[in-house]
Structure formats: structure tokens, C-alpha cells
């Protein structure tokens, strides 16, 4: 049951926040280097020495949203794969069902942590 509601919640997050952020990113690439730099300065890191309060907030918010989207991506991927298996009629025995529900949630958190450790290791 928890996995089911997480599937919906992560899917809605990806569908609205994820898709809009992706379109914003595409638009910034197409517009040119200045627009792209402004996009990066807004959601990731503003290199300006006199960084505005607005960008200080959006730099933190952007990272929170990106980590959230990473989790939503893995959670939705893994619980979606679980749904595809359940569609075949397999995995409804109580013990099996409970085991894979737990595995799906753990794998989502683990993959998110692994991804961001990899990103931060590259940034250092």
C-alpha cells in the first residue's frame, strides 16, 4: 500500500516538476550561453561574488528539488517494474509481496544516495 501511494506521488512529481524543469533546461540550451548560465545560476550555483538573496534561496531549493527528482525517478522506476511483474500475475503471495515492496523502497533510497555521492565525488 505504501509502495502504491509512493508510485503515484513520485509519478506526479516527475510529471509536473520533472517535466517542467526538463523543458526549462531545454529552453535554456536553445536560447544560448547567457541564458544557460542564468539557468545554472538560478537552480545550481551562482558564481557572482554579490549573490542575491533570491539566488541564495533558489540555489538551495534547486538542489533539494534535484535530489527529490532523483529519488522520484528511481522510486517510480522500481515500483513501476514491480507493477509490470504483478501484471503477469506473479508475486501476490503475502510474504513475496511484502519482501519486494520493502526492496523497492530500499532500492529507491539507495540508488538516490549512490547517485548523489557519485555527483559530489566528481565535484570535489
Amino acid at each position, binding site marked *: 500500500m505504501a509502495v502504491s501511494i509512493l508510485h*503515484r506521488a513520485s*509519478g*506526479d512529481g*516527475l*510529471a509536473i516538476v520533472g*517535466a*517542467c524543469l*526538463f*523543458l526549462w533546461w*531545454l*529552453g535554456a*540550451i*536553445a536560447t*544560448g*550561453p547567457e541564458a*544557460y*548560465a542564468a539557468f*545554472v545560476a538560478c537552480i*545550481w*550555483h551562482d558564481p557572482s561574488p554579490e549573490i542575491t538573496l533570491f539566488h541564495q534561496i533558489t540555489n538551495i531549493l534547486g538542489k533539494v528539488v534535484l535530489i527529490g527528482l532523483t529519488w522520484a*525517478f528511481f522510486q517510480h*522506476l522500481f515500483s*513501476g*517494474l514491480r507493477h*509490470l511483474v504483478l*501484471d503477469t500475475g506473479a508475486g501476490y503471495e503475502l510474504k513475496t509481496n511484502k519482501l519486494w515492496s520493502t526492496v523497492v523502497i530500499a532500492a529507491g533510497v539507495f540508488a538516490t544516495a549512490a*547517485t548523489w555521492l*557519485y*555527483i559530489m565525488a566528481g565535484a570535489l
Partner: protein
Amino acid sequence: MGDGSHLGKVRGLGSSGHGSQHWLQQRLTALGNILLVGFLFVSLIRLPLGDHGAVLRWATNPMVALALILMVVSVFWHLRLGLQVLIEDYVHGPMRLLALVLLNFYAIGGAAYGIFTIARIALAPVVAGPGGM
């Protein structure tokens, strides 16, 4: 059609007949998403995302542009189906119709913007001199 009661309005009409199609399309686009969003995810991890030139070189590769366009189609189709179920579960009465209309605007408009932008990136002249286009 009956006397206007909830049951009377639907009695004899049968199901809309689109349920299994919706179900199947949700799964087929899910398979497309695994491949195509997986490709985007690996690319995002490997790209130097702060470097506009590097991202542009990646996005102008014809195979990348093709994969991105396919991804936009698969993702926006999938999210339209998923958000439709969300609306049908939680939005009732006349608001439901409005919500479904807005959903179609979002899904089709977003996909069109995405595809057009990818094409614009891929087909833009490499060197845009002053006054040239």
C-alpha cells in the same frame, strides 16, 4: 437514458470501451520510458552540465536529438495517462472536465514545446555570426 439519476444516466451505455487501451498504452510507454529516460539519466550524470558548449554539442548530435524527441513523446504520453487517473480519482463534478482539458493542454503543449526546442537546438547553425541566422 434514464430519469437523471446517477444509475439512470449510465444504464445501457456499457463501458466506454477505452479502459484496456489506456491500460496497455500506460505499460507500453512505461517500457519506452525505461530505455529513453534511462538514456537521459546516464547522459546527465556524465555531461559537464555547467558547460553550455559541451551540452550543446551533445544535444546537436542527431542520434541524441532523435532519442530526446522519442523520450518527450513517450514521457508526455505516459504522464497524460497517469495524471488522467489521478484527476479521475480525486476531482469530481464539473471541475473534472476542466481539469482534464487543462491536462491535455499541458501534455500536448509541453510535448510540442519540447520537440520544437530539441529540433531548434539540433538544426541551429553552428556558428551564428552577427546578423546571420
